[in-house]
């Protein structure tokens, strides 16, 4: 399906002058100009600036400078990553006009690699949501069907990649916020092992869960972007002191002999068409030589409850600093207390308030043990259950999202229904494990389905190894059905 060059190939062509970056960028800007009014993926996008950067890279390449492994590659950044001199809002009114005085470590690494930031993408406010409907500024649409949500919270980044507004994008994943929108938009989304990518400059939602990760239209692109952003950062105490893992060299290793478990407990939460694709993926891996078996990991079903205590608790504290004193919105009151209350009440949207309230409650005197303490103990149970299962299996497989993309507005007023979207993605978030969503066919509605690969801590390269195989099978499957239906494949044209 993709005749696209990988992003490393794009950069090599820019470097050796065989394909200048400016024309590529101009084509992308044209695509954005045509479809962005409908999709609304970006909160910040400055075509002039992008053109200037593209021109500068071409000039440097022509002068023989080393322009970097991502030279001329366009990257969309979720708007909860700080960018010096460019507004960073978290899709919240409370940060509406904030221009950070510093850039996130991942942004510095992208720039050092020669990447061009194409824009800042929309998200659920402070990354709290699964549909990108909770943005204070706009609702992003799924490029494959604009009556549907792109998923969330990194919906803008997923949509940007799916709509070809950028080669690749960065998102953040706290409970599935990269993987679920990747699945709903038909792209690859990867949440690395906690600590492999620096969180410095990622505006925190839930510190012990947040992890930055890549979106790509291919496993190669997601892997290439991951190799650039990963690796130790002394500014993040939770950053693992080890070199960035190499994942692209896993491309042709296959899955022969890999032990893969299909997690029955999570499959049970999903709609039949999604389950069917997941089984096809499992069968495919088995045909490729993997030892596939259905397994039960009951503790994973406790993840949702634990997550919706832990994440809001950490968020309630992380979001305290939005107080109208040093930056951002201030709604002046008669005194400081009133100013806090007015500022925060005006600046935060309903879902953010709900989670702050929930988290404050879970940490408050008399409830800490019953809720926060309990949830962190459940986290231990889940990690133990995974440890146990990973003695028997190298990887696990399950759906990414229970359904394909749902209609905008469908779940907006039922928080609990929305939270259930994350049931398959949350367990590995709680464990800090890597997980990846790979597009694998379509649902009954013709919308993409993502299957999810899970592995133990630091098994990131192995996930890529299996993902390359799944991608190959998905493409093969597409070619076959395209030939059968004698029509052009719909994923390739968007």
């Amino acid at each position, binding site marked *: 399906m993709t005749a696209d060059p990988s992003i490393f190939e794009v950069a090599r062509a820019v470097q050796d002058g065989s394909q200048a970056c400016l024309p590529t960028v101009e084509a992308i800007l044209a695509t954005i100009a045509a479809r962005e009014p409908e999709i609304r993926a970006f909160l910040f996008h400055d075509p002039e600036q992008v053109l200037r950067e593209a021109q500068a890279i071409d000039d440097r390449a022509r002068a023989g400078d080393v322009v970097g492994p991502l030279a001329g590659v366009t990257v969309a950044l979720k708007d909860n990553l700080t960018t010096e001199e460019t507004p960073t809002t978290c899709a919240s009114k409370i940060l509406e006009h*904030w*221009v950070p*005085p510093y850039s996130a470590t991942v942004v510095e690494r992208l720039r050092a690699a020669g990447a061009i930031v194409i824009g800042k993408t929309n998200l659920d406010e402070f990354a709290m949501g699964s549909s990108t409907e909770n943005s204070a500024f706009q609702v992003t649409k799924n490029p494959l069907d604009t009556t549907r949500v792109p998923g969330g919270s990194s919906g803008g980044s997923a949509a940007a990649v799916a709509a070809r507004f950028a080669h690749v994008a960065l998102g953040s994943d706290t409970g599935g916020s990269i993987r679920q929108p990747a699945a709903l938009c038909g792209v690859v989304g990867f949440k690395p*092992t*906690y*600590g492999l990518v620096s969180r410095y400059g990622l505006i925190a939602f839930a510190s*012990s*869960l947040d992890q930055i990760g890549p979106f790509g239209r291919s496993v190669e692109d997601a892997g290439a972007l991951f190799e650039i952003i990963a690796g130790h950062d*002394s500014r993040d105490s*939770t950053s693992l002191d080890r070199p960035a893992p190499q994942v692209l060299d896993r491309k042709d290793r296959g899955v022969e002999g890999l032990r893969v478990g299909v997690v029955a407990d999570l499959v049970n939460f999903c709609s039949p068409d999604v389950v069917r694709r997941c089984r096809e993926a499992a069968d495919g891996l088995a045909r490729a030589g993997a030892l596939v078996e259905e397994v039960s990991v009951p503790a994973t079903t*406790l993840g*949702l*409850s*634990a997550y*919706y*205590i832990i994440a809001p608790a950490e968020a*309630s504290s992380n979001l*305290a600093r939005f*107080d109208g*004193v*040093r*930056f*951002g919105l*201030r709604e*002046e009151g*008669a*005194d*400081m*207390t009133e*100013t*806090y*209350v007015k500022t*925060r*009440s005006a600046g*935060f949207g309903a879902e953010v*308030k*709900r989670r*702050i*309230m*929930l988290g*404050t*409650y879970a940490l*408050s005197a008399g409830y800490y043990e019953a*809720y926060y*303490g*309990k*949830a*962190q*103990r*459940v*986290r*231990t*149970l889940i*990690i133990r259950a995974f440890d146990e299962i990973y003695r028997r299996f190298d990887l696990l497989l399950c759906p990414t999202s229970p359904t394909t993309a749902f209609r905008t507005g469908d779940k907006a007023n039922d*928080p*609990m229904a929305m*939270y259930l979207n994350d049931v398959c993605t949350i367990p590995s978030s*709680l*464990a800090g494990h890597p997980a990846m969503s790979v597009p694998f066919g379509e649902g009954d509605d013709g919308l993409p389905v993502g299957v999810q690969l899970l592995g133990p*801590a630091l098994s990131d390269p192995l996930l890529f190894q299996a993902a390359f195989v799944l991608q190959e099978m998905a493409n093969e499957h597409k070619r076959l059905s395209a030939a059968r239906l004698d029509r052009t494949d719909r994923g390739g044209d968007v």
Partner: protein
Amino acid sequence: MALKITRDEVAHVAFLARLLIDPSEIDQYAEQLSSVLEHAADIEALELNDVEPTFRPIPLENVLREDVVTVSLPRDTVLSQAPETAQNMFLVPKILSEAP
């Protein structure tokens, strides 16, 4: 069915979080928060006193930096972001009480 979290608790929690919940919204908040807590009944029921909590997914220890000065931010940059300043400081309205 009794709500997991009462109206009074909603109001108290809102104050702790420095949020103002409109009286007309308190019931809705109480219901929504209760439904999430209701869902958490599955973990509430577990007896886990002998299970250690996990606060960080990947265990690390003793991550330290050397005591070396790095560049601070230019004051003008920082102050230019503040809602209000005076005398090169951040200006805030009357504070009602001493720090706790």
